[in-house]
């Protein structure tokens, strides 16, 4: 027993430390149980009264992964291609477009920086192209004589900054949305990981995250002309379907610049996948006629193309983006969907509207905005104030177009298209036809500023709160049953020593949770599986030791000497076996993502704690029983 004082204090210290770190978690569980028993009003009052305390325990308690508490995990990608297009001057040409397209294709396969791919592509398409000619206005550092390398360096910095800015903007939006404990991180060169526990409105969050806050005021074309375009579109597409027209030939032609519905609002998971996905969508609707998808409502005073059922919007968008179809739409006209569904219909459907290609005013003139309510109807709206320049232009625009509708377009969706009654001076206007939450979200997006480049959701995982609760129950149940079975089995097989191992196992589990809480790690469902697995594997070290002790006893040693020898001889096997498994954990952690990292963390924590409990805790107990009490410990 000599020299065990240090070990005993170490074990006690770890136990106390674990309990200290786990205390807030226990407190939180108790709080939540208490709150759950109250009525709703009481709960709200209680929450307000104890806000600080609750917040403190919440922050210090064991983090549960999104798969356990429910919520949303989104990976956003900042569109490098779109950013480069944005940075370029207006005088881009076919070489530029072609290079951008090639770079986009290559970025699927390559890990290289997008800017490098683009530069390589443009030099490939037309050797000796000077990049400076496209980016003269992108930065002060670029002038007509800048070399391609210099331009590329500037573009890289811009891209880097865009991602950082986008991360900040996303953070602002999420904070304003009111998520408790969100996590927003930059990942790699152009991705942002957003974790939002407890979010139950995925659609709203998606729009909020992706919204580029591109606000535009546009006039609308003559309804008669739009009706003609609508008819020619239907006629062309449907005839094409019937005749099985070989659209492949026309598709290779360059697409006109102003294409189609919802181009800005394209929300595909991946830019490059879009083309492929579109073709799939196209082939899926190949046998469906446009007249079936698009309901034309004749005799309108507003330039409506028609109504599209919600489930067909993607298909119609795909048809309209087809180059051969896009050619039928006059270049001065853009076809966009309405943001809100058509009123008074049984099935949810949206207007497809025609707006002018020309943007009269943009969001940059807006100085202030806020959610508000219409004076008489009390309908929610977003009120906007413009700066002097904007106010003057808005007054001119409205003055010159009395009696005509003006479209207010946000991120490629038409929110309202009021008919101008009189010239509006003073620069105030509003976005109507929104719900209250929509009004709040639009303000959030407008206030946080426009994203420097469009972002796309490349990964999304949503878990409902009930499913999370189920996972917690399942995980806890497996943990308890697994634990009990192992302890019973060990006691049965090794008798007294087995029970000692059982005690060590209790401490082991306590330490694992303590480590997780202490290091602020996140417990996920795979993580819980990792703990369960650790329980099964943790006894391995004990088994190795006990088997050795049995061997030593069989060779005729005294119990005391056998225990001593058993631990010593088992050490090298235990060390090698655990180090290799730990290395696997490290690899799993470095290459895995999300929940899998949670698994790796518990696996590693489990190895460390099981080494400690087997070599120190079990040893202490055995030493105490054998040497301190002189007990005849049975090893089965």
């Amino acid at each position: 027993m000599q020299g065990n004082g240090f070990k005993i204090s170490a074990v006690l210290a770890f136990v106390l430390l674990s309990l200290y770190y786990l205390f807030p978690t226990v407190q939180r569980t108790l709080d939540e149980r208490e709150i759950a028993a109250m009525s709703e009003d009481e709960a709200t009052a209680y929450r307000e009264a104890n806000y600080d305390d609750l917040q403190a325990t919440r922050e210090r308690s064991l983090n549960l992964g999104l798969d356990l508490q429910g919520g949303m995990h989104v990976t956003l990608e900042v569109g490098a291609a779109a950013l480069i297009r944005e940075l370029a001057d207006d005088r881009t040409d076919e070489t530029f477009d072609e290079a951008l397209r090639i770079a986009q294709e290559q970025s699927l396969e390559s890990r290289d920086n997008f800017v490098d791919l683009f530069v390589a592509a443009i030099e490939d398409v037309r050797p000796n192209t000077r990049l400076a000619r496209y980016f003269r206005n992108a930065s002060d550092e670029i002038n007509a004589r800048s070399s391609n390398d210099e331009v590329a360096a500037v573009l890289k910095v811009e891209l880097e900054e865009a991602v950082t800015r986008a991360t900040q903007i996303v953070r602002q939006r999420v904070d304003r949305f009111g998520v408790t404990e969100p996590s927003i991180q930059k990942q790699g060169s152009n991705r942002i990981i957003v974790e939002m526990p407890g979010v139950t409105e995925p659609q709203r969050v998606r729009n909020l995250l992706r919204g580029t806050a591109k606000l535009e005021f546009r006039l609308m074309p003559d309804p008669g002309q739009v009706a003609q375009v609508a008819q020619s579109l239907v006629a062309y597409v449907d005839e094409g379907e019937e005749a099985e027209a070989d659209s492949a030939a026309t598709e290779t032609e360059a697409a006109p610049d102003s294409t189609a519905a919802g181009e800005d609002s394209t929300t595909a998971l991946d830019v490059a996948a879009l083309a492929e996905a579109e073709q799939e969508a196209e082939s899926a609707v190949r046998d469906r006629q446009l007249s079936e998808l698009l309901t034309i409502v004749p005799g309108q005073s507003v330039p409506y193309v028609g109504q599209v059922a919600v489930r067909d919007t993607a298909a119609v968008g795909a048809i309209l983006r087809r180059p051969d179809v896009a050619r039928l739409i006059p270049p001065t006209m853009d076809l966009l969907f309405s943001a809100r569904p058509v009123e008074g219909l049984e099935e949810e459907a949206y207007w497809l509207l025609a707006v002018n290609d020309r943007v009269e005013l943009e969001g940059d003139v807006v100085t202030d905005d806020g959610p508000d309510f219409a004076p008489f109807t009390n309908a929610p709206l977003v009120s906007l104030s413009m700066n002097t320049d904007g106010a003057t232009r808005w007054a001119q625009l409205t003055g010159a177009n009395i009696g005509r509708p003006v479209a207010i377009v946000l991120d490629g969706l038409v929110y309202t298209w009021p008919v101008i009654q009189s010239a509006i001076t003073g620069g105030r206007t509003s976005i109507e036809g929104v719900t209250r939450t929509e009004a709040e979200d639009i303000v959030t997006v407008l206030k946080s500023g426009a994203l420097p480049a469009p972002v796309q959701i490349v990964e999304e995982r949503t878990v409902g709160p009930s499913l999370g609760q189920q996972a917690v129950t399942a995980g806890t149940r497996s943990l308890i049953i697994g634990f009990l079975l192992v302890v019973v089995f060990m006691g049965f097989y090794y008798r007294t020593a087995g029970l000692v191992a059982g005690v060590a196992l209790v401490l082991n589990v306590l330490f694992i949770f303590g480590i997780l809480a202490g290091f602020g790690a996140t417990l996920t469902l795979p993580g819980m599986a990792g703990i369960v697995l650790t329980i099964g594997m943790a006894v391995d070290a004990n088994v190795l030791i006990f088997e050795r002790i049995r061997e030593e006893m069989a060779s005729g040693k005294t119990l005391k000497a056998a225990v001593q020898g058993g631990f010593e001889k088992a050490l090298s096997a235990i060390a090698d076996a655990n180090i290799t498994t730990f290395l696997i954990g490290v690899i799993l952690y470095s290459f895995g993502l999300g929940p899998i990292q949670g698994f790796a963390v518990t696996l590693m924590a489990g190895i460390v704690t099981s080494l400690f409990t087997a070599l120190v805790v079990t040893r202490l107990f055995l030493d105490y029983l054998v040497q301190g009490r002189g007990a005849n410990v049975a090893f089965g």
Partner: protein
Amino acid sequence: MRIFDNAQYDFWAKRRLGMTISGVLLLVAIISLIYPGLEAGIDFKGGTEIVVQTEQPLAPTEVRAALDEQLGAGSEVKEYGSPTELLIRTTSGSGDASAISQTIIGTIGAAFAGSNPEAIRTDAVGPRFAEDLQRGALYAVFGSLFVILLYIFIRFDWRYSLGAVAALTHDVIIVLGLFALVHDLTPVTLMLDQAIIAALLTIVGYSINDTVVVFDRIREFTQLFKTEDFSTVANRAISSTLSRTILTSVTTMLVVLILFLFGGEVLRGFSLSLILGIAVGTYSSIFVASPIVIMLRERYGTSVPKLSTATR
């Protein structure tokens, strides 16, 4: 209680049996990896997977028919744990998470009145992101094999190192093969995804754990019984660690079985591969890793394994 007390089995004599079993298993595994092949989940292929909860039970085939009309063929519908929960997986459509899950919910709601569908879990992975995940998984699997190769080489010598990695590769291939073989036959969702990769690495970790314990004993015994044949020594080492090997397998198998039964639908594929892996891993450390070390030693000299700090 004691099992295998003073066990003296001649594993080396049974090596041909072991090789035959491993050979057959490997053959079956490789064939089923080619056909029917492993099905990649959306993690590695890209696509959308949602779990839809409805108020009344719906027949997966009918739901599938309804969805095919909207999304084109290619979506997959399965019951998920309970009759009112359906797992729907699709790679078709415009690739947009929100659009697809909306379309699915809308279609089910329209086709089955009163079903009141609700998405309780959504996973959507873009194709490009999926490619990154795939790369990460490959790096992880090969990286771990390489690290083990290196570690065992440093702690033992190259023969042990090769024997261990051969056994691990054997385990990974067989588990993947069995996975491919049964994935159509079981009601459990068996798809190659991130969780399965994690399971594979855990199996690698478990199997190497087992193997190292045996190696350690072989190394110890070669110091003790210098005059004896290496195969005899190795055989004795396997025999004397046998009870530990079996015992640890039993406790680990117990908890993994519990995970399979009580861990819920999400962990089912994961725990099933662990069950397979622990069985194969335990077997391989006895019948694959050690025989290979013996054969390599008989073939390439009999240098004494490095004496390291661990041999006390």
